[in-house]
Every structure is written in structure tokens, then in C-alpha cells.
């Protein structure tokens, strides 16, 4: 399974953190520090895989953002790269030519999209379209509620 997923900028600023196992706050901070240090120190055309403690670390840089995940030792690194790429594609589809600023100002949306793609550290849906449609539908539900206070979530429209 995936233990954690981090997004951080080239200056080491955290843009998203998803943890799939219970870890104390202090240790989370340490892991984030270690990951940013390790990944930012890598030369441009290096291999995308690292070892850290008993985990495999897979990272990929997309423009100004680093996507970095920590995996159990038996995971397939190459498919993990595809997983990161899929998440970026989903963000791109949602925001339209996604950039770092989109993720900064709409971080909660980035989480919602992630939660339609991964669940409990595993992939939950392998079709791009199904994920995108689910996000759209959830957003519409949210809009309906905000626009019309008559809308009742339990019963639908009166």
C-alpha cells in the first residue's frame, strides 16, 4: 500500500499531504523534512526511485511541484509512477492546465480528487472518466445546496 503522498514545491513548501497510516504529528513533520531534503537534492536526470528506512520512495517532478509517495517494500515502483501520473492527469482535467497556484488556492479540491482516486492507500478506480464524473457530480451536489436552501440532502428536491 501507499503509506503517504506529499506534494511540495522546489523551495520545499508543502502543498498537500495525505497519510494512510496513523502517525504522530511530530513524526509526520520529520518525514516531510526528510522527503523534501532527499528529493530536492537529486540531480535532474536521476532515477525516480529511492530507499528510505524500509520504504520505497517514488517521486516525479511536474513543473514546479514534486509528487512524492512512500510505498511498502513489495510495491511495484513503475506502476507507482503511473499512479502519480494519473493523479496529475486528473488534476489537469479538473482545473484545465493545472499549475501549482491552482493547488495552493484550491487545496481542498485537490484532496477531494485524490479521495476519488485512492482509498486507504490503494487505487480505487482505474478509469479516468469515472473519477472525473464522480467529482463533477459531487461538485454539482455542493452547488445545488449552496444555491438553493430548499434542497434537502436526504430527500433531494422538495
Amino acid at each position, binding site marked *: 500500500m501507499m503509506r503517504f503522498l506529499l506534494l511540495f514545491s522546489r523551495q520545499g513548501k*508543502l*502543498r*498537500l*499531504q495525505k*497519510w*494512510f497510516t*496513523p*502517525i*504522530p504529528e511530530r513524526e509526520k*513533520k520529520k518525514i516531510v523534512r526528510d522527503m523534501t531534503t532527499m528529493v530536492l537534492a537529486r*540531480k535532474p*536526470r*536521476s*532515477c*525516480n*526511485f*529511492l530507499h528510505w528506512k524500509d520504504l520505497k520512495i517514488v517521486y516525479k517532478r511536474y513543473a514546479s511541484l514534486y509528487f512524492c509517495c512512500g510505498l511498502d517494500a*513489495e510495491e*511495484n*515502483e*513503475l*506502476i507507482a*509512477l*503511473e*499512479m502519480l501520473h*494519473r493523479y496529475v492527469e486528473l488534476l489537469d482535467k479538473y482545473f484545465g492546465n493545472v499549475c501549482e497556484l491552482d493547488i*495552493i*488556492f*484550491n*487545496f*481542498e479540491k485537490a*484532496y*477531494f480528487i485524490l*479521495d*476519488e482516486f485512492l*482509498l*486507504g492507500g*490503494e*487505487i*480505487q*478506480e*482505474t*478509469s*479516468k*472518466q*469515472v473519477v472525473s464524473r*464522480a467529482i463533477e*457530480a*459531487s461538485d454539482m*451536489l*455542493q452547488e445545488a*445546496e*449552496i444555491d438553493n436552501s430548499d434542497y*434537502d*440532502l*436526504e*430527500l*433531494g428536491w422538495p
Partner: protein
Amino acid sequence: MSPSVRLQEMIRVIRGARTQGEERGVIQRECAAIRAQFRQADNGTRSHNLAKLLYVHMLGYPAHFGQMECVRLIASPRYNEKRVGYLGAMMLLDEKQDASLLITNSIKNDLSHNSQYVQSLALCTLACMGSAEMCRDLAPEIDRLLRASNSYIKKKAALCAVHIVRKVPDLGELFTPAARSLLCEKNHGVLHGAVVLITELCERNPDTLEQFRKVVPELVQIMKGLVMSGYSPEHNVAGISDPFLQVRILRLLRILGRNNDTASDAMNDLLAQVATNTDSSKTAGSAVLYETVLTVMDIKSESGLRVLAVNILGRFLLNNDRNIRYISMTSLQKIVQTDHNAVQRHRGTIVDCLKDQDASVKRRALELSLALVSAVNIRSLMKELLLFLSSCPPELRAHTTSGIFNAAERYAPSQRWHIDTILHVLTTAGGDVRDETVPNLIQLITTATELHCYTVHKLYRALITDISVQSLVQVACWCIGEYGDLLLRGECEETEPVQVTEDDVLDALETVLQSHMSSPATRGFALTATMKLSTRITHNVDRIRSIVSIYGSCIDVELQQRAVEYNALFKKYDHMRYRGSVCGAPSVIAKLPEYLLGGSGEPVPSSGLSHTVPGPATSTSGGDLLDLLGGLDVSPGE
């Protein structure tokens, strides 16, 4: 003003802060406002305030006062409040917080909500941070959803069940029947979840594993469908149909086929098919091939299939993509013991990877090369390893030198080759060798009696070129002290002899003694060597005597002690000088290293000088081989 804008406005303000202090100030003000809002009655802004708090939390600031707000929002009837509430729960609450128990009831209710998107929130949160207690509580609900719901919910319920099984393994039995029936679904999301769930169940329970071996044919069918199907736009990634699902199925097959002939036979054809039909030009295809190779090597596969798998890894080694080269080498490393010959066939490519730019690839190539050393290829492989050593990154040097020494020790074709190799390593990377290298080399040289002349010539040449590498200098000094007569004789069979005078040799040793680059241990070697030469040379004994007496007042205590005792040998015990104390003898040599190194080069306290050295001072028979300076009662300053 729509809620998102308020959040975005705050983010803008925080980002606009020019210093850390300014940012802290802004955040403190915002948090104070948020706290105040939380305390008020519901005014429709709770979700935005929590969202703001979550942003602040991501920047690293404390946000624990938002935990109860998460609980409240989750219980709200409004979707947008639930959405942010559950997000907050996943970010701020974990199973160790007491507040997490309070949301169990909300989750329970939401699991049976009319709207699947609310159900989805509950499932997601449970799978992310559900404690063992919550899992036990809600497991029956999850099982119900596994059986009777739409595919959107089923796939999430499956992964939720995976989390539950990880937290409470006993509950695996509850989910086994439902997991089995999920394999009949067509929906890829559900199938993927089912495969992950079955994998988890089989890994934890051998009985369940036995049960699920029966579904191997079904899994094979599903895989065949994926591999042979035409282009499917919904699941296609670079020409591969749903590589994520393929990889998971292959992994499950691996677990089911392990140590079981029947299951392994049933999947043999499929694996061969996947191995030959999958296009590996992009990462997706390579990922599937990689998983196939891992499965083939782990189950009881036919030898033909194993060779096919190793060849795939060999092909990977030639791939332009560095990641694939790295993956190939980690896999080869795992099988190099069991399938040694198959891996040997790719030795050439592996050795080429030593020259790769990437440090991770280099490290893997080094490990693999060292594992492939054998009596047959030692000469050619060592050439490559020595070449690698001269340009390898500093963090790999120590590992490389010790690997080379081990390999040389096991497979050296001749003593001369062995000595040459060690000397080459010392010249190239003498600073990165382990401490035992010096005594080990001395031992080796001693036993290679026919090569004493050759060795002392080589070491002398090395010494006059460069005295910065301590290990090399120490061995060189020792050798010159021991076999200096062979050097002075001016003839050698194995190599071009040097024409040196006694003064030249003493010059070399004195340079070492006086150089600030020499460590105290190295000086010790040089001084002892100088002393030993007093029995091997004829003309310059006075020069040696004067060198030794100079060091009698050296600041370094160790050196001073030695010099004084050597001095005493000259004065009081000159007759013994030839007989026992400075002539080479096996027992002396065996003890020499410990004596001279005495605690990695640090000065040995004077009490240590004689503790390894037996032999009373009173023995004057001369025939006894007195250990160097054994039992002499001298006092400094004499």
C-alpha cells in the same frame, strides 16, 4: 461573497506576508477569528472556517482546536459541511485522538445514507483513519455494502474492508464470501478492489489462501481478456489495457502460485503470453512486464519461463529509461544466488552500468558485479572494478574497496595478482580501506616468499612517488624495513630493479618521518623500519643511530618511547641487535600489527608496549627470538 473566495482571500494574504514573523501574525489573527466563530452558534460559515484552519494546519501551525468542529460538521445534514468535516477528520484526527470515537456514529449513519456521495465520504474516512474499535463496530455494515450496492460504492467498500482486515485480521473471515463473489463483476474499479481484498486476505490467513487457489483459472481468464482485448478507451494507458488491474492480478497470482505446483501450472501459459505480448516501450507496459517477471521467479515455473523472465530483465538493462535499468538490477540482485548462471549471461551489460551517471544505478551495478565474481571471471571483472574505483562517487568507495578485497581473497588466481590488486586499491583509494587492510597485506606479503623482492620494489617505487596515503605508506615502510637488503642488492627477476643507495632508502624513510602528512602510526612504522635497516645495511649505521636518537626527544610520546628503546639497543644491547630483536620472525610479525597499530593509530600508553611481548630481559641466549623490545628496562632520557 461565495465561501471559497473568503478562503482564497486568506491564502492570498498569508502568501503576501514578507517575513516569517508577518506570516505568524496574520495566522494568529485568523486563528483567533476562527476560534471565535467556532464558539458562536451556527451561522453558515463553519465549513469555510474549518477549510481555512486546514490550510493553516498544512503550513505547519497547530490546529487541534478544530477537532470538535470536524465532529460537528460531519453530523450536519448539509453535504458541503459534511465534505469539509470529513476532510478535517482525515487531516486532524487519527485513531489516537479521543475525538475520533465521536464520529463513529455519524459514519454509521452516513454509510446508509440515500446519497452515494455521502456514503462515499464515510467509507473514505473509515478507510483512512478508522481505529480497530471503529472497524469492529462497522464491519457488518461494510459487508452489507460489499454485497448490495452499486459499483461506485462496492469498489470503495472493498478497500474499506482491506483497511478493516489490516486493523483487525480476525475479521477477514467475515469478508471472504463477499470477496469471492466480487470477482464476477465486470466493473474494473470493483474488480481491482476485489483483487486487493483477496490479496490481503490470502496474505494473512493460510487457510483462506488455500481456498482462493481455486480461483486461479478465473484470474487467468480475466488477465487474458485484458491482454488480448482490443483498444479500450476507458482503461487504456499507452497501449496497455488497465495496467493497474493487470499488475494487481499478477501479484495475486504470485501469492497463489508460490510453493504450489498445481496453481503454478495453471498460470504458466498466461505468464508466457503476457511476457511475450506486452509492449514495453512505455512505463505502463514495463510495469506489467516487471510484475510478470517477479511472479515467474517466485512461483514454481518451468525453466523455459524462468529463462524468458531473466532475458526480459536483461533487455531492461539496455533500456534508455534509467528507472527501468534500476528496476532490472534490483530484480537481478534478488535472483543472482538462485539463478546465477542465467544472470552471468548478462554480466557485460551489468558491468557497463557501472559507468552510468546516476548514483543509484551505479550502486546497484556495483552490488550485482560483486555478486557475480567467480573464479572464472575474476581477472576481467577485477579490471572493471578497479576502473570503477578510480572514478566512483565518494560514498561508494569504502564499499567498493571491501568488496574488491573480499573477491580477491576468495578467487585470487595467484599471489602476485593478489598483491598487485591490493596495491592498486591502496594507490587509488587508500584512504577508504578498513583498518585490517594493513596487517592483512603484511601477512600476505610475508607468506609470498618468492615475491619479497618484487613486492619491496613495487612498494619502494610507490613510496617515493607519494606519501599521502597512510595505509600504503605503512605497508611500504614495513616492507622496506623487512626486505631492504633485497632492494639494495639491485637485482630482481619479476620487475625492473632499482639502483638505490642506502642513503636513498634512508632518505625515503626520513621523509615519511618528517612529513606533516604522516600520522603517528605511520611515523611509528617508519622509525621501526629505519631501525630494522641497521641490521641490513653496512655503511650507514651511524646515520640510523642519529635519526633514532633525534626522536628520543620527540614530542610524540609513542615515538619518543620507541626511539629511546631503540637507542638502548644500540648502546647496551648491540650484540643482540643482530640476533633476535630486529630480524624478521613470524611471531614478531604476527604481533607487530597489533603492537604498531595499538588502537587505530593513537599513541599506545607505555604500559601497552610490552603487554603483547613476552620474553624476559635476562635471556641472553640469543637463540630465542626476542620479541621486539621485550622486557628491556630502560628509562627515557638515557
